[in-house]
Structure formats: structure tokens, C-alpha cells
């Protein structure tokens, strides 16, 4: 089964008005089960729009989105995916632990069960000691990790991430990249990951999907097979070859 299947997707914002924008034009995309796919492209090429369409946060103008074999709206109602944005978007009036619990709470999971689940997720992102803190007491990087823990809490078969590490410093970013890969390896989740960093896309992905702007469309899809996803992988010749390949695809 495929995690995500997008066919003939077109999105026009403000259709019929003077400020009409053709954000996406005739996009096809398939994400296999357990596959890690990055979307990369110049800003304004429709990466976030594509992700929001998959998440059923906005409606397509034409075309169809299927997630876990269901129409996108049904998949959203069934919470088939977890999502993380560039801003952590934590609820500042809830403790770290209760933030992670929220999606479980809304699913009607019992109190004891969601507490243990949340603690497990916080353990995973290395924040077990901060369960009782409020988001305002954490650094930006820690908040982002809480947001990722929250996205993972329902153990969704699919993770959607929109530049989740965009606002972080290089050190934190690299550590979180490794953490994310580790988590996906354990949970077997499929991932659609939006980024504007070429090296990040190549390091994380099984496949890098390159997009171009005006109108937004997919121009290339580059398979990446690194020998390993660690420091050795970052030094491998393939890594640099793929970076060059993606860069060229972005230029043309």
C-alpha cells in the first residue's frame, strides 16, 4: 500500500479574483510505505501548499489526494498522520507532557495510558526530564522536539513536516535529524518532509522531490541511497554527488 498518492493536483488560491494565484499545477506524487520523501524548491513554489493539501487543511482545486488508501479528509478524521510545522505551535498553558498528550486526549485515550505514552515519546526526543515544564521555559530547539514528540504520540503511519528544523541552529538541527531518523526507523513511519536545505534533504531522504515556482510543479525526483545515515554517510562520495545533482535540478 502507498502512504500518500497525489494525482493531477492543482491548487488555485482566490480563484476568479484579481489576486488569483496558481500555487500548484498538475502535481503527481507517490510516497511508499516507510519511505522518507523530501520536498525542496525555491520559496513560494508550493511546498507548504502541497503538504497542507495532503493534510486536508486546504481543499484541492482539481485532482485527488489519497492517504493510507483513503480520501485525505477521511484520513485526517482518522488521524492517519502527525504533523509538525516550522513554529512548534505548543499550547503555552499546558505543560510539556500535556502538550504531547493533547492528540491522545482528543482521541479519548484514558488518562493513565496517554500519560505513559507521552512520557515514552518525551524519552524518545530526550526531554523526559522536562515533562512538568511549561513551553515558555524551554529553548526553541527543545520546543521543536516537543512538537515532534506530539506529532509522534498517536504513532501515525505518516509524518508530515514543514521545515520543522528551519529556525534551529546547525548543531541542534543535525542532532534532531539523527533523532528523527532513529525514530522513523523504530516506528516505520513514512515521512513527507519540506525543507529548503539541500544537504538536509539528501541526508534524510530516500527520495528528494525537486519543485519549481510559478506555477509550482515537480521538476525532478532523485533517489538517494546513502551507505549509512550518520557521520560516515555525510562523508560519503554519494552524499556529495547527490547534493550536486539536487542543486543542478534546482537550477534548471
Amino acid at each position, binding site marked *: 500500500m502507498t502512504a500518500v498518492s497525489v494525482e493531477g493536483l492543482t491548487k488555485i488560491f482566490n480563484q476568479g479574483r484579481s489576486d488569483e494565484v496558481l500555487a500548484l499545477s498538475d502535481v503527481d506524487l507517490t510516497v511508499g510505505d516507510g519511505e522518507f520523501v523530501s520536498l525542496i524548491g525555491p520559496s513560494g513554489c508550493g511546498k507548504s501548499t502541497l503538504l497542507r493539501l495532503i493534510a486536508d*487543511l486546504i481543499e484541492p482545486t482539481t485532482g485527488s489526494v489519497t492517504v493510507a488508501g483513503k480520501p485525505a479528509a477521511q484520513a*485526517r478524521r482518522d*488521524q492517519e498522520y502527525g504533523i509538525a510545522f516550522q513554529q512548534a*505551535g505548543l499550547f503555552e*498553558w499546558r505543560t510539556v507532557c500535556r502538550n504531547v498528550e*493533547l492528540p491522545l486526549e*482528543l482521541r479519548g485515550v484514558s488518562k493513565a495510558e496517554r500519560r505513559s505514552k507521552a512520557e515514552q515519546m518525551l524519552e524518545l526526543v530526550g526531554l523526559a526530564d522536562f515533562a512538568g515544564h511549561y513551553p*515558555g521555559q524551554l529553548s526553541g530547539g527543545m520546543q521543536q522536539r516537543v512538537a515532534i514528540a506530539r506529532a509522534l504520540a498517536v504513532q501515525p503511519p505518516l509524518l508530515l513536516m514543514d521545515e520543522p528544523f528551519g529556525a534551529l541552529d546547525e548543531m541542534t538541527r543535525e542532532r534532531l535529524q539523527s533523532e528523527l531518523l532513529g525514530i522513523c526507523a523504530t516506528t516505520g513511519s513514512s515521512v513527507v518532509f519540506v525543507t529548503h536545505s539541500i544537504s538536509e534533504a539528501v541526508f534524510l531522504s530516500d527520495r528528494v522531490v525537486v519543485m519549481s515556482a510559478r506555477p509550482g510543479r515537480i521538476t525532478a525526483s532523485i533517489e538517494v541511497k546513502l551507505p549509512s545515515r550518520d557521520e560516515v554517510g555525510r562523508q560519503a562520495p554519494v552524499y556529495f554527488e547527490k547534493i550536486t545533482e539536487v542543486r543542478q535540478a534546482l537550477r534548471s
Partner: protein
Amino acid sequence: MRRVLPPVIFGVMALVLWEVFVTLGRVAPFILPAPSAIGAQILEQRGNIWDAALASGTNALVGLIGGTLLAVLAALAASRSRLLGEVSIPFAAVINALPIIALAPILNNMFESTSSLPRRLVTGIVVFFPVFLNLLRGLREVNPVHQELMRTYAASGWTFAAKVRLPGALPHLFTGLRQASSLAVIAAVVAEYFGGLQDGLGARITSAAAFTAYPRAWAFVAGACLLGLTFYLVTLLLERVAMPWKQRLLS
């Protein structure tokens, strides 16, 4: 200690200066009585001040709670409907600009002279607007990321209001309540100036002034100050209890 000491020292110095100014300058007591004279009256009248403060305080509290409850319901309704929200804000602003206290004599005539209801009504109306306007602003300022997240959790409108809108608007609610708590005491006391039941601080102030007992009038004014301060401080305390996440940031 550091935060308490400077205002206390300042207050004591101001009282001493006031005493010296009134004594040396031979200021007539109907213009400004000396703090020692007022202090003596506070001691002498403490039982009356307490009773009067209790009467005015009850009116202020009932008005504050009633006005706040109505304001919260109205703001929730106005935040759910775009049209209602857009109509209600200018409407509320205009009514808020009217001297609502001036309604007191009219309301007094509508009820029996032994009823506390007119004061409570005036207080309730005065309290309504700051709470309504502030809370409505808060309810409308929802972080777009929160909105999208709740959508991905397939949360209903009611869940969204209870888990995101209301807690997110708490800081705004308390901004309104802080204004309203002081206003409530002012409204409850001043509403007594227009006749009706003679049991509160406002009635005591007017009657003392009518008998040219100025230090006594000032003693009851001091009582009104303390009452207002109490309301304000209790609101601050509630705010801290209701929003522990703000508290943790400061310490």
C-alpha cells in the same frame, strides 16, 4: 522586601509632609484635614467603616460576578459569529463611553428605596464592558498554527473553544478583570451618592460631608480606597492561580 519597602517609605514620607503642611499652613479642615485627624476618625469609626465597607463590597462583588459572567457569555457568542462580533464591538465601545454612573438615579427610581439592586445593576453594567471587550479580543486572536493543529486532530468547534480559545484568552480576560475590579468598587460607592439605601461607604461619605464632619468623611474615603485595593489584589491573586504558566516564567 525590596519591592514592598520603597512604596512604604514613600507613603510614610507623604503622610508626614501632609501633616506638616496642614499644621504649619493652618489649612482649614474642610479644605484638607490632617492625616492625624483622619486617623483618629478611622479608629473611632472602625466598626462603622467595616460595616459600610461590607455593604458596598457586597454590592461591588455581586455586580462584578454578574457583569463578568454575562460578559464572558456575550464574548463567547460574539467570537463564534462573525457578524455578531463586528456589530457588538462599536456598539459596546459607544455604550462604554456613556457615563453609566448617571444611570444610578434613574435606576433608583425604578426600584424600592430599600433595595440594593440598583447599585448592583450599575456595577454590573460598568464591569461588563472592559471584560467583554478584552476577552473578545483575546478569543479572536487564535494562533493560526493552533487552529491548523486542532483541525488535524479533527476537533469539534466546542472542543476547540474549550481547549484553545478560552485558555488562550485568559490573559486578556484578566486584563479586563483587573480594570473591572477597581471600577466595580468605584461604581458601587458612587452609585450610593444618588440616594437609596444608606448603608454603604458612599452614603456615609455624603452624610459626613453634609454634617461638615470632614475628617470623618475622609475616614470613609480611606475605607473605600482599602476596599478597592482589596478587590484589585484578590484579582491579581486569582490571575496567578489561574495562569501558573505565566508565574513560572517570572521566577
